[in-house]
């Protein structure tokens, strides 16, 4: 199996452990990732609120670069917002007449062109459907027995696109977590919003949303996520959420590839466990790291 790889900006900064662990986990699973050369920002949720065309041109630039490297390769995207933006362009050029021409008019400024042959997929989709739980189970060297994991999906890996899971009651992480030997924390918050960018602009609202998710995760040893924004909000604002909720909400928040990577026998350093802000002692003990 080999894929093109679009990490996105967060994975070079605040989500560096997601970048490192995704690559290490994929290598351990025998999956080859080729990073899109000269990739740039997808526009996140900022471009869409400023310019409709720009919010499609920025992802299209990366799709054009990907197409040039491999005209039929699937692109693996770990960040949910990047996934939504790149996928949207692929969908909308088939729906909106003249859009592809407009995109190419802008991309032509850099000597690029896009035909629409790429397929952008979220990392979770690739793990759940291409790699599969069975493969992870077979390659597991260090079963994470006794570990209780709350699978947190967030929004944009499921909605409005997705198609690999139920967008309201997602389950695709359950078999992957079970394949590592861990058990799944039963809860209904997996697809609820963490507040996303409101944490910067309307903090009081986002802290409320984050607090509700953290409260529901009580009883689990850790939360796993597949989105840099979700991880940041759940990991970094626990103290503030605890103040609002009036209870201790401390819990470790790992990226799914960190958890899977540990089960595959990777070291704590190889999945950059020290980069997570909230790493509880109880989790350290259970993982023996």
């Amino acid at each position, binding site marked *: 199996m080999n894929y093109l790889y679009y990490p996105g900006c967060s994975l070079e900064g605040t989500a560096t452990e997601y970048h490192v662990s995704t690559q290490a986990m994929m290598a351990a699973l025998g999956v080859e990732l080729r990073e899109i050369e000269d990739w740039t920002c997808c526009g996140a949720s900022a471009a869409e609120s400023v310019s409709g065309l720009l919010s499609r041109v*920025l992802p299209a630039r990366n799709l054009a670069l990907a197409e040039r490297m491999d005209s039929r390769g699937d692109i693996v995207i770990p960040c949910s917002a990047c996934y939504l933006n790149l996928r949207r362009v692929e969908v909308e050029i088939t729906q909106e007449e003249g859009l592809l021409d407009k995109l190419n008019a*802008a991309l032509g400024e850099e000597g690029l062109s896009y035909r629409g042959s790429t397929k952008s997929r979220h990392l979770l989709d690739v793990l759940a459907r291409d790699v599969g739980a069975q493969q992870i189970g077979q390659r597991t060297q260090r079963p994470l027995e006794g570990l209780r994991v709350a699978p947190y999906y967030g929004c944009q890996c499921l909605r409005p696109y997705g198609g690999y899971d139920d967008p309201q009651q997602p389950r695709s992480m359950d078999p992957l977590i079970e394949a590592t030997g861990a058990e799944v924390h039963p809860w209904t918050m997996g697809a609820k919003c963490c507040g996303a960018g409101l944490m910067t602009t309307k903090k009081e609202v986002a802290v409320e949303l984050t607090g509700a998710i953290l409260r529901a995760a009580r009883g689990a040893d850790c939360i796993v996520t597949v989105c840099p924004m979700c991880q940041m909000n759940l990991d970094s604002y626990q103290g503030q959420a605890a103040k609002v909720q009036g209870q201790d909400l401390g819990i470790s928040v790992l990226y799914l590839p960190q958890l899977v990577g540990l089960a595959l026998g990777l070291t704590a350093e190889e999945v950059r466990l020290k980069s997570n802000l909230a790493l509880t002692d109880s989790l350290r003990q259970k993982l023996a790291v």
Partner: protein
Amino acid sequence: MIAAISAHTKEPEESPSWESIREHIRACMQCGTCTGSCGSAAAMDFTPRQLWRMVQLGLRDEIFTSRTFSLCSSCYYCTLRCPRGLPLTETIHALKRLAAARGFTAKEKGTRFYRSFLKTARRYGRIREMELMTRYFLAMKDPFLPLGFTPLGVKLLRKRKISPQIPRLSGPGKLDAIFRKVEELEADS
């Protein structure tokens, strides 16, 4: 009755985007599924369902001065669940663009954050998180705003997840050509 209201509120100078926004929401039957699905609804001055009625009625000033659309976190729950299948989240984004274009939200944190974000993307091609926040703080001109982010910033620096980089304030930007062309194409349409 509905025809009478729209005839009354239709003004000749309405921009195409406002018309397209109204067109998107025309089939809304006010069931309130959007409001029930929205995590931020409690903090809004008008709920999503009320917002869509206001769009149908053409209450533009009330909409653009409300907090409602700036509290959308783009979770797409309302869009997923809308029994009419209306593109609600995308319509919120269109409202944000229209409000910004008309200067209603120029001082809004969200607008300034988005602008700072795009300036950083244009210059370097990729987002440098530390510089983005610096640009945002400068744009907000509020000396106390950075204080709220300092504890997290220090933690992230310690973890080496962000690093101070010297901003380049002049010279060509990585994505200048594409940004310029987009502006040109948007001015034509």
